[in-house]
């Protein structure tokens, strides 16, 4: 616990740790302000064609709608923000030469690497909580509550008392997704002595996997279920009329397996590594 506390102290004393928090805060405010002025037009556009057939009661342009929009827009970009911190967790020590100070203390390398992973996980949790607070909490205060209009394969309107748990589950799933991403950046971080490499490498892996899964070739489509990127967006399932829990749990299981393997491999590399920096 002492090591985790120390890691968190170090992490939150670094400017780069706040880039993600500031970026999410700024983007959320920008989206909230723009939706404040144009959000009703979006609702009208989405409801076009059915508003004459149904009688709409209540405020569809509300905090839940705004928060859902923000989640859709931002969740794609959060990996870019978490790797800024994850890529620096080990490579930062190598760059600064502080491995020599850290690893000549009566702590094992396994303890050090575990503390790094826990800190990375905590950072992801903080970032997602912050996003939840500023997008959901603040939007509910500004725009009020009401039923949630969700547009996917069809138009679904969730009753007000059927929404909050969906958001909580979506944020929970996003934590698993982003933990996978930050753990990938930590494994790259354990291999090099400069934080830029792990950041670029992790983003390259994500982009390459996304492209591979988007190419309509049978062989590549067959690979899709095995690519972790195919499972990052399952949080969206919680905004379906009928949630496919089997699919959600399978995807979560695959991501958790990735997390376990990434931790084990990184720990092995780190324990065997010669510290030459």
């Amino acid at each position, binding site marked *: 616990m*002492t*090591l985790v506390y*120390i890691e968190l*102290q*170090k992490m939150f*004393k*670094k*400017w780069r740790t706040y880039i993600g928090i500031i970026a999410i805060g700024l983007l959320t405010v920008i989206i909230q302000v723009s939706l404040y002025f144009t959000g009703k037009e979006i609702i009208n556009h989405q409801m076009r064609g059915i508003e004459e057939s149904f009688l709409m009661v209540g405020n569809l342009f509300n905090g839940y709608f705004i928060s859902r929009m923000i989640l859709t827009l931002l969740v794609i970009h959060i990996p870019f923000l978490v790797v800024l911190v994850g890529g620096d967790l080990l490579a930062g020590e190598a760059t*600064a*030469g*502080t*491995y*020599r*100070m*850290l*690893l*000549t*203390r*009566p*702590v*094992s390398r396994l303890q050090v690497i575990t503390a790094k992973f826990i800190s990375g996980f905590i950072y992801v949790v903080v970032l997602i909580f912050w996003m939840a607070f500023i997008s959901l909490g603040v939007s509910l205060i500004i725009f009020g509550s009401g039923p949630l209009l969700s547009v996917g394969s069809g138009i679904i309107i969730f009753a007000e008392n059927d929404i909050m748990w969906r958001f909580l589950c979506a944020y929970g799933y996003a934590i698993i997704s982003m933990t996978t991403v930050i753990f990938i950046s930590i494994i790259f971080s354990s291999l090099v002595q400069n934080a830029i490499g792990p950041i670029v490498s992790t983003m390259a892996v994500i982009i390459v996997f996304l492209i591979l899964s988007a190419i309509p070739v049978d062989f590549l489509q067959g690979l899709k279920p095995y690519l972790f990127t195919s499972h990052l967006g399952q949080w969206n399932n919680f905004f379906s009329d009928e949630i496919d829990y089997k699919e959600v749990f399978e995807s979560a299981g695959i991501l958790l397996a990735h997390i376990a393997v990434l931790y084990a491999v990184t720990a092995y590399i780190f324990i*065997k590594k*010669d*510290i*030459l920096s």
Partner: protein
Amino acid sequence: MNSEQVIEVRGLTKKFGSLTAVNNLDLNVYRGDVFGFLGPNGAGKSTTIRMLLSLIKPTSGEMKIFGKSIEKDRKEIFPKIGAIVEKPDFYLYLSAYKNLEILGKLSGADVSKKKIMSMLEMVGLDKRYKSKVKTFSHGMKQRLGLAQALIHDPELIILDEPTTGLDPQGMKEIRDLIIYLSREKGKTIFLSSHILHEVELISTRMIIINKGTTQVEGTVEELLASDKVKVTFEVDRVEEALGIINETSWQKEFKSTSKNEINFELAKEEIPALNKFLIEKGFSVSAIVPVRSLEDYFLKITEGGLK
């Protein structure tokens, strides 16, 4: 010399691919030693220190500190070790105080404000305790490095070039501190340094390594006494004195001359005999200056002139 071995290294070898950085090295450091660890650049000093501190895994060999295995008994051994490995690097974005607090906490030290401030005061950084380390000069980081190595009151202190970057006053302070830690506090010091004069002044025992292998090991006095000493005799009538010397067996020891100086290479016990000879021949000897030093010895050893 205390017979309790603090560091015991047998057949230590480290290979990086085809390069052998350390080759079958043996080390014996005893409690209370100020152990000088010498060698030219690339001799394998830093690699050895990194292996002793488990930063690098040896290819083969056995290392024991306080009679215990570094790999297996790490948690017992490391609270008793304080170290500076090469240049001291810190978390630059944290203050000197915070760095010491973090590193002390990891070593299980008392990290009360009083303790940390006393360590900072000892190395002359107490007035800069709030300053971020990124604002520190190399010398200040070196001092902070010493503070972090000592904060948990270790029994064995491993110092890799501890005076690099310090001004002469700072170097003397560190030397005095090492002597104090050794003599007054009974600490065992393992000192790697390029400054041979520094090692000569403060070490009790030393080893010289080159190309990863031991060249010589022993007490400083023993090693220096085992070789001839360069001595300069200042005499009047140099030419006349040389003429007489050339007719005697002292001619074999003669090396060079300049102005009123004649340079010899002599065994220590030969110095008074030559002095007596010159005086008896009527010359006035105004000074006898031994120029033999660890530096000459080191150069001979590492250049292969003495084995």
